């Protein structure tokens, strides 16, 4: 488009035409590139760099004090009680990731496979599964918090109604159930997203592959295992990486449903909540420590970056091999 319009306005002489065209092209490219680069620098590079710098200083409340070297990192990783808090929150993130991979993405894969066969009502189910994704997360959190209320909530009422009183319990108030409950609510909310991505992957596979396999006598398991699964590898890569990043940046749902302290007794604490409390202060005390908070943010960033890069390479390698 741009080239064509510059064609019209440029003089016919060959030399000037080329120069004008080239200058126009450079200008055009600059117009396209400068805003996103600026955006990237201002909103990504600068905050990350400043977090890194903040993390190397000691902070007196909100004022920057002396250079601290790696003391903030040492405190988080090797001094009590921070060490306990850091490992506790980290393992919770790991549990979140593993459970979501199994419960959320596993179910999504099965649903996508079934919907890929275009049964009756495919479109209807697609909409139903995707509906929670479109709801505001805060809304989902509050709604489920009400559902799970031990006194008024429908979850326990339903369990009582079908004769399972023994199972009805304060889901969000017990160390043993609180984190799992939050993870399942998260899976309920996000299920539609991996389903749609997997389904899109399945729909790009030419129908002849399935027909040919079935003519050769392949059963459902063989088709799923040797045709569908390898050919949706790119979709799997994306979902694994997104789930990983989402699990380790998890903040909103535990914040809305459990609270900033990760109650009861840090049973729902994750790195996101821990970071917020450390940097900006907790509910009761309000003590802020930007140095310690920044150090935690830097550790989280480096961990997520490193794992994502390695994982993307491994998973992409698998895709290339297959195609």
């Amino acid at each position, binding site marked *: 488009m741009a080239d064509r319009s510059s064609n019209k306005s440029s003089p016919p002489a060959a030399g000037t035409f080329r120069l004008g065209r080239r200058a126009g092209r450079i200008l055009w490219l600059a117009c396209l590139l400068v805003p996103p680069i600026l955006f990237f620098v201002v909103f990504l590079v600068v905050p990350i760099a400043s977090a890194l710098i903040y993390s190397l200083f000691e902070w*007196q*409340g*909100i*004022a920057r004090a002396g250079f601290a070297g790696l003391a903030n990192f040492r405190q988080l990783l090797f*001094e*009590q*009680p921070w060490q306990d808090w850091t490992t506790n929150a980290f393992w919770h993130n790991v549990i979140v990731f593993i459970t979501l991979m199994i419960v959320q993405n596993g179910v999504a894969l099965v649903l996508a496979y079934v919907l890929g066969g275009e049964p009756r009502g495919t479109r209807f189910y697609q909409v139903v599964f995707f509906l929670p994704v479109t709801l505001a997360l805060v809304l989902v959190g509050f709604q489920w918090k009400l559902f*799970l*209320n*031990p*006194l*008024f909530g429908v979850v326990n009422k339903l369990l009582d109604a079908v004769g399972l009183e023994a199972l009805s*319990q*304060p*889901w*969000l*108030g*017990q*160390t043993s159930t609180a984190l799992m409950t939050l993870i399942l609510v998260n899976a309920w909310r996000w299920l539609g997203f991996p389903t749609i991505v997997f389904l899109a992957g399945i729909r790009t596979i030419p129908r002849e592959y399935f027909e040919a396999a079935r003519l050769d006598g392949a059963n459902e398991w063989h088709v799923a295992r040797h045709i569908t699964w390898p050919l949706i590898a790119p979709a799997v890569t994306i979902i694994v990486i997104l789930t990983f990043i989402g699990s380790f940046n998890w903040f909103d749902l535990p914040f809305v449903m459990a*609270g900033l*302290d990760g*109650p*009861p*007794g*840090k049973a729902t604490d994750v790195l996101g909540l821990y970071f917020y409390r*450390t940097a*900006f*202060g*907790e*509910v*009761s*005390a*309000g*003590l*802020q*420590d930007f140095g*310690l908070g920044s150090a935690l943010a830097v550790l989280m960033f480096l961990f997520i970056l490193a794992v994502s890069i390695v994982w993307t390479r491994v998973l992409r390698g698998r895709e290339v091999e297959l195609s």
Partner: protein
Amino acid sequence: MKGTLRTLLIALLVAVIGGLALAQTKLTFWSWRVEDADEYNQIIADYQAAHPGVEIEFVTFQASDYATALSAGLSAGEAGDILQVRAYGAFETVAEPGFLLPLDDKVPELQDFPELAVNGERLRSDGRVYAVPFASQTLLIYYNTDTFDQLGLTPPETWDEFLATAQTIKDAGIIPIANGTATAWMDEVFTGMFAPNFYGPEFFDEVVAGETDFTDERFVGALAKLLELRPYMAPDFAGVDYATAQNLFANGLAAMFVGGSWEIANFRDLNPDLNFDIMPGPAAAAGQPRLVSSFLDGGYAVNAASKHQQEAVEFVRFLATKQFGQQFVDLLSNVSPIPGVEFNDPLLAKINDFNQNATPYVFLVGFRYQSPTGSTLIQERLPGMFAGDIDPAQVGREVTDGIATYYQPFQD
């Protein structure tokens, strides 16, 4: 003609702008009390009428964002001239780096304030006072007077009477105590309400001085006593959070609620028909003192970088007068620490009476200055203690160990 008119107009304009600039000093007043904006604006309007030339703008932030907004504003040099600040540790966060103006030499009214209030705004490193205290909070038991009347109950005075009362209420099919343990900070409130009558009036000073710590049998014994309340708390109390507990009490489903004096307005809002009264925690035994835990909520400070310090200090001095205190009490239903203020609201008058027998709310007043704060440590362990996963002695030991990581008096 045209020229004269133009000259006149310019002269008039200069006079108006100049006059305005001379007459109006504009101050901004930062606060987290979004819900009190109308009342504050009314008080400010009265002040402006008496002080022509000063204009005060009341700017509010959500309470949960206030600390961040204040930090950001102060470090960027854009915060208000007059600032509502928290007390104790959160106050030191902004006072220690020198963002606030010391007021003890500029506001002589502070000398008449009670020590407990002024100490909440005193920086420990230089001993100076940086804010005029505005309200104290007291931990109480709220009780539903209709339920008590129907069951023929009178407010219990001792621990044994309290348990018997709770049993009667439970037998009548009503939840005796609305509280649960799902909201961490409420667990500390719950403990802070009952515990002082078991650990006694001397414990606070001794523990702050390091003469004892939280492994003290008085403190551990107080925690153990709390466990006797479990049969009377909301069913499945582990999952009952702050909002649920408030609703249980406000709607008459529970007969008692343990909370702070700030709940009066909430209950009146939640259910205007609710008839309730307040009492201090029960005494350990007949004839023993009935202490209440009390603490300072916050104060009014002056930004050290304000361009209108003199006017700001003058306004803050007004905020320390009995005239303001009376307006504050009447309009905002809070307990002002200003001496001589009269409480027309019977509940506020009661709280003021209870406060004559107050002990500082132990973790908030004594151990919220450094991380891990005493509050963080105790809140983290209370749900486990109520669930029976850890015993009171372990709670006391772990809280002491956590504080000892930085608190010199606990290290020996």
